[in-house]
């Protein structure tokens, strides 16, 4: 595209971000400040994720972009088109075909490989954000691995609700050292992060932070010995493909209380249907 550098950002900016990424990879889970640039979309729309993707994209990469698991939402489509225009890279909706996956708030159901990179869009990188208002204090807590406060919050949940009530952005310990916010992915997705063969990169544009989990790193969701972490999903099967082990979206189908549970990961659902799996509502569709 004329007038723009490959993947929109200038090379110096990409170098700066890559330096930050290297530091982040060297200290798994540690937040590295970076000089977040003004991007052609507002804060809160994925500027951090886009800058990270722009810095690592090469001409031979294949890019997939998902938003809450779907390739076809407005934001996913816009970002995919953005990189198609500014980098000319091949784009895909198939998880297995991609080399770089930019995601908002979900990890694909299909296990990722060592030759893939997943880039998360992060609104609030600080896991202690709601518990400790002082940033000076949270930096000290990270520096000293002083995370008692986070466990106090979990204790309070159990005391008040009988169980830990965090359903998304569930805090994790990375490499047994840093407390990290995994971004607002459902708690159901947390186990996928543990010992993932792919490189995981996190970009927060508004807060100007980058962090990373190198491949094959231990990521453990916080819990208590007698209240262990459980990955919970809705007790339904996907109406379209019949999957019972994927994260489901609940879709309102009419104004008479009609509901449909479908896989949040659109590629996963489509692949299963292509293989011949049919869910209860898929049958009904076919019959109509």
């Amino acid at each position, binding site marked *: 595209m004329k007038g723009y550098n490959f993947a929109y950002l200038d090379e110096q900016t990409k170098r700066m971000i890559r330096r930050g990424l290297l530091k982040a990879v060297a200290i798994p889970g540690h937040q590295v400040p970076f000089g977040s640039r003004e991007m052609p979309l507002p804060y809160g729309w994925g500027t951090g994720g886009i800058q990270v993707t722009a810095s690592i994209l090469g001409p031979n990469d294949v890019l997939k972009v998902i938003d809450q698991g779907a390739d076809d939402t407005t934001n996913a489509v816009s970002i995919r088109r953005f990189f198609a225009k500014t980098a000319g890279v091949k784009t895909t909706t198939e998880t297995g075909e991609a080399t770089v996956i930019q995601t908002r708030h979900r990890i694909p159901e299909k296990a990722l490989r060592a030759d893939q990179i997943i880039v998360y869009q992060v609104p609030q990188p600080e896991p202690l954000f709601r518990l400790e208002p002082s940033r000076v204090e949270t930096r000290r807590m990270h520096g*000293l691995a002083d995370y*008692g*406060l986070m466990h*106090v919050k979990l*204790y309070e949940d159990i005391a008040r609700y009988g169980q830990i009530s965090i359903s998304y952005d569930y805090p994790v310990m990375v490499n047994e050292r840093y407390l990290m916010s995994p971004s607002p992915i459902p708690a159901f997705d947390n186990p996928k992060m543990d010992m993932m063969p792919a490189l995981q990169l996190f970009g927060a544009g508004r807060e100007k932070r980058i962090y990373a989990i190198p491949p094959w790193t231990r990521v453990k969701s916080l819990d*208590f*010995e*007698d209240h262990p972490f459980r990955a919970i999903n809705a007790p339904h099967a996907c109406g379209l493909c019949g999957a019972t082990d994927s994260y489901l979206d609940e879709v309102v189908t009419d104004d008479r209380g009609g509901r449909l549970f479908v896989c949040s990961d659109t590629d996963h659902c489509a692949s299963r249907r292509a293989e011949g799996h049919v869910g209860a509502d898929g049958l009904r569709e076919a019959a109509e």
Partner: protein
Amino acid sequence: MSDEPTLISARGLNLTFGAIAALADVQMDLWPGEMLAIVGESGSGKTTLLNVLSGRLAPDAGTVWYRDPAGHLHDVHAMPAPALRTLHRSDWGFVHQDPRQNLRMTVSAGGNVGERLMAQGARHYGDIRAAALDWLAQVEIDANRIDDLPRTFSGGMQQRLQIARTLVTHPRLVFMDEPTGGLDVSVQARLLDLIRSLVARLRIAVVLVTHDIAVARLLAHRIAVMQRGRIVETGLTDQVLDDPQHPYTQLLVSSVLNA
């Protein structure tokens, strides 16, 4: 008798705030299991001394030595920040005059008491809750308040909660800054009784700062009297209070109203 090593010692402490001498050539020793009261009027430097001893404020000159459970001496102001922070959460405690400075007001009583345990790595919810219940009982807070917020507690209860929160990790040394200040007389009596029995039973060493001589007489083995940054007299509590030698001590003792 004096062969037993001290728990904390200070030598040559000096600190000025501009032209004001907050501490002038202060030295002290404290042995395990004993309570030392530091008394004086406003501006005597007693709170400054407490802050210097506990590492919260650096002196211009002088050293504070602390002996850890393994018997090794540490220069408190030369310790790295993480080590001092860990110390404050394990082997040391600090009871503030205002309990709200030490409590998390948006966290339940049980969470407040359990925090130090969790910070040290306790990961069993049932055990943590049991320890919290045990300590609430020891400070005479009703067990069914364990999930209540400290906001709903009276001042005396908040102070007792602060003490439970501080003692849960069995510190060997506790710094107390006017722990009964601002409380009603009956509440004060209850708190003093609690401190007295806990300290005796758990063999905790305490540095207690107070302007109230009666509190010092009730609780402390030894007493140090401060005036304008200097310790003017120190010794056995009953001896210093019944047979004061220094003019300022005599003034202080004679000024106290007896109920």
